[in-house]
């Protein structure tokens, strides 16, 4: 690192410039990833947190739970299949609820299931459902002013009371309400807890008219989910490509300018591996510093964002993305490394061997 550090210090300006670009690109990557994660949670945290291994839908629904229709009797049938440990029904209905009989209206997603079943989330405030006219509501509704004991009315149906709140229960960018399923014949899906080793048996038992989805597949089946994520992910991929190319071009040109020096150093007895390490050291050092600054910048921006903006930064995700940016930087430096390897020390002697 003797050479690497001294050169960085001597040529501060050009390295600060490239560092600036890297900080911007890395920050953008972090911010868009945060947005993608946030939107994903806002769109489907109820499905992501659903306490189930598999979701059975009818084959014509193309993985979209809301498009699937199954007869209630199928539940009993599925429960008998060996390998199925627990099974519950799930119906999803997008509704508009009027609050306490006032003008206030809230869009909600009704998750209709057995009140004593596995799908009922853990309650963070209040109680679970004990009566048919009670619901568990997503905590986000509290921001709209809803409290325990408030009543909700859906169209002509009877009134429901909020018995409890649960966190992270969003579906299709709407807050979810859990309610009892009794008395409904047509359901959307059957969720099952099962031994993954017996999945083939279960498939045979259920028959060809039905698909068995994992939670991840069910997510992709939400129509807005995959298109949202795809466009954001494409942006992120492009940013990675941009980072790689900008760094590649920068280090390529710098290395080109340093050919003579590398030739001299090799002639003086520097091993190629020493020079390669020196260049890699520079790339890694610059990247690590820039990533650190970008992380700080992203945290700062997060603090400035309004609270209801779907933006989710997790430490594990940050670390993963940072490592990816670092890897991409090193990949960008590879063509320069090839250059360094190929420089012939005889170039240090004017005229000979050229």
């Amino acid at each position, binding site marked *: 690192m*003797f*050479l690497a550090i*001294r*050169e960085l*210090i*001597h*040529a501060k300006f050009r390295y600060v410039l490239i560092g600036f670009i890297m900080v911007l690109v890395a920050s953008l990557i972090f911010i868009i990833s945060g947005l993608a994660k946030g939107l994903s949670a806002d769109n489907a945290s109820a499905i992501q947190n659903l306490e189930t291994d598999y979701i059975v839908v009818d084959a014509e629904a193309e993985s979209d739970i809301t498009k699937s229709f199954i007869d209630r009797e199928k539940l009993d049938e599925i429960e008998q299949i060996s390998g199925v440990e627990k099974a519950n029904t799930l119906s999803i209905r997008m509704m508009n609820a009027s609050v306490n009989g006032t003008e206030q209206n809230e869009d909600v997603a009704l998750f209709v299931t057995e009140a004593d079943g596995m799908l009922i989330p853990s309650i963070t405030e209040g109680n679970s459902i004990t009566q048919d006219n009670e619901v568990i509501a997503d905590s986000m509704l509290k921001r709209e002013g809803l409290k325990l004991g408030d009543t909700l009315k859906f169209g002509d149906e009877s009134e429901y009371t909020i018995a409890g709140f649960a966190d992270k229960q969003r579906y299709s960018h709407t807050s979810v309400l859990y309610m009892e399923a009794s008395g409904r014949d047509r359901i959307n899906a059957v969720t099952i807890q099962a031994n993954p080793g017996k999945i083939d048996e279960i498939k045979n038992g259920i028959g060809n008219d039905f698909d068995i989805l994992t939670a991840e597949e069910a997510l992709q089946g939400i129509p807005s989910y995959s298109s949202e994520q795809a466009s954001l992910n494409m942006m992120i991929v492009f940013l990675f490509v941009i980072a790689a190319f900008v760094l590649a071009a920068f280090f390529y040109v710098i290395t080109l300018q340093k050919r*003579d*020096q590398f030739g*001299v*150093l*090799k*002639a*003086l*007895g*520097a*091993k190629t591996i*020493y020079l390669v390490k020196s260049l890699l050291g520079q790339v890694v050092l610059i990247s690590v510093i820039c990533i650190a600054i970008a992380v700080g910048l992203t945290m700062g921006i997060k603090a400035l964002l309004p609270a209801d903006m779907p933006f989710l930064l997790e430490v594990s995700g940050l670390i993963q993305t940072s490592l990816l940016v670092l890897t991409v930087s090193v990949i960008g430096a590879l063509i320069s490394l090839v250059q360094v390897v190929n420089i012939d*020390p*005889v170039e*240090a*002697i*004017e*005229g*000979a*061997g050229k």
Partner: protein
Amino acid sequence: MTLVMENVSKVYSDGPKEFKALDDVSLELQKGEFVAIIGPSGSGKSTMLSIAGALLSPTSGTVFLDGENTAHLSKRKITEKRLEKIGFVFQAANLIPYLKVRDQLRVINVIAKNKANSKGRELLEHFGLTHRTNNYPNELSGGERQRVAIARALINDPKIILADEPTASLDSQRGREVVELLADEIKSRGKSGLMVTHDERVLDLCDRVVTIRDGRLEE
């Protein structure tokens, strides 16, 4: 004998064309001996120096560095030999632009993993560069630069000093001073020196002058 070249030829092949830059050249350097190579442009001087310094391998013939036949050495070993046995002084000094004078010498210790080597200060003092140790090359005069280059060539205590037109970028006064310094170091430290030069006025500082013409050596 520190440097021996035996019947060395070098053929550059440029596609189908072949060009014999060195033709059956033999040369021996004694300890403490300072030899000049002169000759017209394109006669093969730099080629000969590059082969002597193991930067280029001969098409035929053998080169012994401090008694060791370089033909049998791997590329890696040759690099090590260069570091250990040879000090180079290049035409335009070729200092590393982002290193201060002090670090120009220290980088050799770093490469050689010999950080304990404390000869740098003594060398710089000896060459009258003490007040320049914290300057970058672009802040030095041509003569100072070339003196740093010579100090760099000496820091690792090599047996052989090779110089390719070390005075080319200097006026005759400074040029002569630099060659005097080289000759002095080679004599007093018991090294062998081989210098390519165009400048006939410094030849009196050398023990021996060989002339090369169309790749052939004439003494």
